[in-house]
């Protein structure tokens, strides 16, 4: 019965698009999550997505057709600033993230409220924050952009895997022994901004942190090595995203929240498993 229903849904291209894009974006977010969580930058996803939200508000007021063209560069600049601010300034990394995050969110809402002609403002804001149906209305070009960016992110992570590990584990040692940490940190920041902008389409700005944090934290319940945690986080993220999208289609629930609900569920399952494995 459900299977047949799903079969019918799969006839629609928008469902297939949603699944492809959803899986790729969730995969990228979980890869970066490994280094972000371990470097205590869990909330950078939040901060950056609010920046992107602010930019989007401006773009919609300016009636830009492709808001991503403005969103990407601004978000990248903020990512670079935040990650470099984190080390070596008077403002703590988490405080800086909170400041930028709340600041841009408020400004974005103000601008939308003041200038947008749209009558359904509350609905609009809710959609951008929680991404309610955005992923089901992707155009073909958006799908191609998302696929392209995701593949880029995954490729960068694979090529720089060893560097990412070394810098995440002990940045000082890497700097001291002549590894070009600055360049790698810059690359990581750019890739993070890419993923955030991508993920806004999937779960909306408020729930991005879930895609970054849950897979890694869950994987850490079960595995000891960096490699195993990375692989497990990716698989965890893919499965919970597919489940979330399918359930939301069948049950008519908001996509983003359903995906995150699956993440939460998965986390508890992994906690239990970890508990029993340690007992055994």
């Amino acid at each position, binding site marked *: 019965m459900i299977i047949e229903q799903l079969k019918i849904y799969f006839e629609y291209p928008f469902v297939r698009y949603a699944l492809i894009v959803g899986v790729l974006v969730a995969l990228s977010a979980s890869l970066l999550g490994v280094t972000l969580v371990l470097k205590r930058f869990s909330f950078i996803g939040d901060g950056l997505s609010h920046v992107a939200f602010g930019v989007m508000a401006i773009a919609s007021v300016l009636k830009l057709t492709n808001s991503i063209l403005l969103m990407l560069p601004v978000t990248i600049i903020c990512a670079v600033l935040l990650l470099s601010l984190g080390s070596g300034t008077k403002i703590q990394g988490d405080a800086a993230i909170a400041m930028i995050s709340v600041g841009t969110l408020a400004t974005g809402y103000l601008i939308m409220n003041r200038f947008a002609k749209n009558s359904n403002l509350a609905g609009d804001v809710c959609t951008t924050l929680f991404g309610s149906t955005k992923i089901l209305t992707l155009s073909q070009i958006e799908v191609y952009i998302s696929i392209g960016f995701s593949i880029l992110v995954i490729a960068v992570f694979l090529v720089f895997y060893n560097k990412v590990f070394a810098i995440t*584990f002990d940045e*000082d040692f890497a700097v001291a022994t002549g590894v070009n940490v600055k360049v790698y940190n810059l690359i990581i920041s750019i890739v993070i901004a890419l993923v955030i902008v991508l993920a806004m389409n999937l779960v909306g700005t408020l729930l991005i942190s879930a895609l970054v944090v849950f897979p890694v934290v869950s994987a850490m319940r079960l595995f000891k090595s960096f490699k195993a*945690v990375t692989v497990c986080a990716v698989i965890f993220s893919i499965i919970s995203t597919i489940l979330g999208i399918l359930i939301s289609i069948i049950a008519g629930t908001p996509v983003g929240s359903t995906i995150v609900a699956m993440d939460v569920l998965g986390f508890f399952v992994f906690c239990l498993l970890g508990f029993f494995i340690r007992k055994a």
Partner: protein
Amino acid sequence: MFQLSCENLVLGYEGRVVINNLSFRVTAGDYLCIVGENGSGKTTLMKTILGLKTAMSGHIELGPDITTKDFGYLPQQISAQQDFPATVKEVVLSGCLNHSGLRPFYTKADRQLAETSMVKLSISGIASHRFAELSGGQQQRALLARALCATQKILLLDEPVSGLDMKTTADTYDIVAELNKEGTTIIMISHDINMAVQYASHILYVIGPEAVYFGSTKDFLSSNVAANLSPGGKGF
């Protein structure tokens, strides 16, 4: 030939000087021991040499055939968080990164090097254990193994034996002395002055912000500094 030369270094934090006007030179094959009280600025000096901190003034020059890629480093403290998922093997292997350039994977030679370093420090038995779950002394040895992977030229060790038991301490000193015999330059911070004068070729003794003794161990032993330091003031 000199590998490292510091001239008129002033070290400190935010306007507070910790060590003033320090000059010394390290030549290939030297074994330099840095000694001094807690808080005298030994770690600060090492971090400045490694470029983790900038000096307030003065300059540091590397020898003609030396780059930062020739440094291996054992930090006094490591900032990775408590539940960091990384095995001992992953940590040791990450020492090879500085000479792997843009290559995405470690070579067979890298893995071999990591293996030998772990055997040298007798931690190959715990290679697949999680680093964060090891005892302090085991972690120290894993980090030393990582430093060995980074270089054969200059090792900078910040209190490599703190937290080690007596046997492991002796073993570690032997390993370091062996490396030094094979041509690795050693710069080591230590609180064990007896060991320092036994193994080191040079001593840098931070007495206070304005007073630093630097010289060969032989000269150090016949200086007033050593006479004042040893039990009963009779020298070593």
